[in-house]
């Protein structure tokens, strides 16, 4: 089952095995069970939106994916193989990058410096500025970023959207495979939101798996290919965007059910054209 190929060949990868699969993941902090048997898939070339109300467990889920802490139990499959991710460096080594809400950029450094922060290219102990600048230019060009005047300007002088762009560019400069974006448009105006969403779409079209966390359903419906709804630590559903409408998603977020695909829906009742709901059956 493939999604309709509305925007180029990248989306046809949807039929393949997911890049990242979580199966029956649990996480608790002391007595508080935050995630209960969560299944989650992210596919290369797709934007997977992760939505849910405050406290639903979105942050816990992505921190587990990023290796900030390990899951208590459950399977973590990357490229079909079970892997162990208990440290951010292990996640980075797999090609997983997370862009957090507070962007973690250094205002006093320029764009190139920020893109390579902590992973500078050196030659004989010296910073290889030319190589870094070339690669930064290539990366930004590859993302069709045309909004920054000079890549040697300080990050402090950038607008919110541009800063978000830099943060996202930093996550892909090392040829990562999966990028998790935590509320990338939360603090942006209309035009800048548009820019960033286009960038998010482009990441997926370039073949990356993108996980987009957002409270804004407009954003989700604009760029996402599938939506995962967390409700009180359980995965209410993971459906293709075209199979649900906004009202159903709101209902899923607030009550955990709706559209025949919620938590209480019997296995198999989900819309058959939804490629991802098969995971619900387990």
């Amino acid at each position, binding site marked *: 089952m493939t999604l309709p190929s509305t925007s180029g060949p990248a989306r046809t990868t949807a039929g393949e095995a997911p890049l990242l699969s979580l199966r029956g993941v649990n996480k608790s902090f002391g007595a508080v069970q935050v995630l209960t048997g969560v299944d989650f898939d992210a596919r290369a070339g797709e934007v997977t939106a992760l939505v849910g109300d405050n406290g639903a467990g979105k942050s816990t889920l992505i921190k587990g994916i990023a290796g900030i802490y390990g899951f208590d139990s459950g399977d973590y499959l990357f490229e079909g193989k079970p892997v162990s991710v208990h440290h951010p*460096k292990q996640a980075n080594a797999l090609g997983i990058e997370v862009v*957090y809400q*507070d*962007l*973690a*950029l*250094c*205002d*006093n*450094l320029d764009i190139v*410096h920020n893109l390579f*922060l*902590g*992973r*500078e290219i*050196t030659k004989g*102990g*010296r*910073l290889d500025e*030319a190589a870094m*600048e*070339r690669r930064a*230019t290539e990366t*930004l*060009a590859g993302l*069709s*970023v*045309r909004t*920054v005047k*000079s*890549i*040697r300007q*300080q990050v*402090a*002088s*950038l607008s919110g959207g541009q800063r978000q762009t830099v943060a996202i560019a930093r996550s892909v400069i090392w040829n990562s495979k999966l990028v998790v974006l935590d509320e990338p448009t939360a603090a942006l105006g209309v035009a800048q939101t548009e820019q960033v969403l286009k960038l998010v779409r482009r990441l997926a079209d370039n073949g990356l798996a993108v996980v987009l966390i957002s409270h804004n359903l407009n954003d989700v419906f604009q760029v996402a290919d599938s939506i995962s709804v967390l409700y009180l630590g359980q995965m209410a559903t993971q459906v293709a965007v075209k199979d649900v409408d906004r009202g159903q998603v709101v209902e899923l977020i607030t009550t955990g059910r709706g559209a025949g695909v919620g938590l209480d829906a019997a296995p198999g009742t989900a819309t058959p054209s939804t490629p991802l709901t098969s995971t619900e059956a387990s």
Partner: protein
Amino acid sequence: MTSTVAPPPPAPASAPSQSPSLSETFRDYVDRVRGGDVGSLPAVLGLLVLTAVFSLLRPEAFTNAFNFSNLIHQSAAVIVIAMGLVFVLLLGEIDLSAGYTGGTSAAVMGIVVTNRGLPWWLALLAALVTGAFIGFCIGTLVSRLGIPSFVVTLAAFLGLQGVMLKLIGEGGTIAIRDDVLLAVNNDDLPIWMGWLLFVLVVGGYAAHSLRRAQGRRADGLQSEAMAVVVAKVLLLAVLLGAATAYLSTERSRNPAVTSLKGVPIVVVVLIALLLGLTFLLTRTAFGRHVYAVGGNAEAARRAGINVARIRLSCFIMCSTMAAVGGLMLASRDNSISPTTGGAETLLYAVGAAVIGGTSLFGGKGRIVDAILGGLVIGVIINGMRLLNQPSSVVYMVTGAVLLVAASVDAISRRRAMATGRV
């Protein structure tokens, strides 16, 4: 203007292309200053104004080659300590104990070379190790235990004063008689070596700038226009040439007895430190990480930078440089006394760094700031003494200058935030 024959606009984002012209570069600079990125401008202006004022008030005493070389010797210690302070100021930290660290290290040096009679290089090494050890202790307390650097170094400020007294003995002094150590901040280079130094510095700077510009152009990256490079090299050549020529004149009051001419040896030390430390801060990953930690420690941590290790290294750097500063003081005074590195030394050094353009808020500063600011401080002290002002006035004026510098820092920072230039 040699460059820009305005080729068609290049493909966006892919090729930043041709270099800006001289006038564009100048306009850019004016924009930067207006936007709050004043850099070393206040120090340079201050230096010009102060020199002009003292030259007018004391034409014969202030404006002569003897006083010029004297000024360099007097400022050397403050400049070197300020260079070290730049590292901790870049992190947004402070080291109040740098002055006494210098004094303590100098005392160790004095004990080794004078009391024990060991060779000068061993004494110097002992001083540097002492400085590094003090920095290690301070840095560990700050970076591992998280005690504010203000408190740790205030404690060290008091403690080291005691250590110095213990080493030197109450009221005593340790004389320095070693020729090499005395030469560092007293003697001059032969005339020809002064000019050789001039040629090396200007030639080296020119070669470096040209190679850099050419390399970047070959890589298709934006580079400085040839006109800008040439203008900078010429300016440097004129300034240093004039200084070298001035210092090469006979400045002894009684040339028959002793001849005093040539570029002070301490200038070589200052230039070497300037180049070495600037390289460290701007061309290595370590330096980049120092700026990153000063700009946003959390961002640096998330980028995988070992923030605690960077903090520790900066404090070690600062205290080691303070030890070099202590050497300058001891060499100048021919001895070490309990006041070596004490009193206002530290405040002058902090003032030098801040006047030069290093921010007290962290993340912004350069090694050359220490030299420019140190010269401003040096000119004030030197000029006020020539005006026969009592210490009371000197202190008040210096305090006022430090306040002005800190205000410029704070105001330019506010402006920079408003225009997004931090």
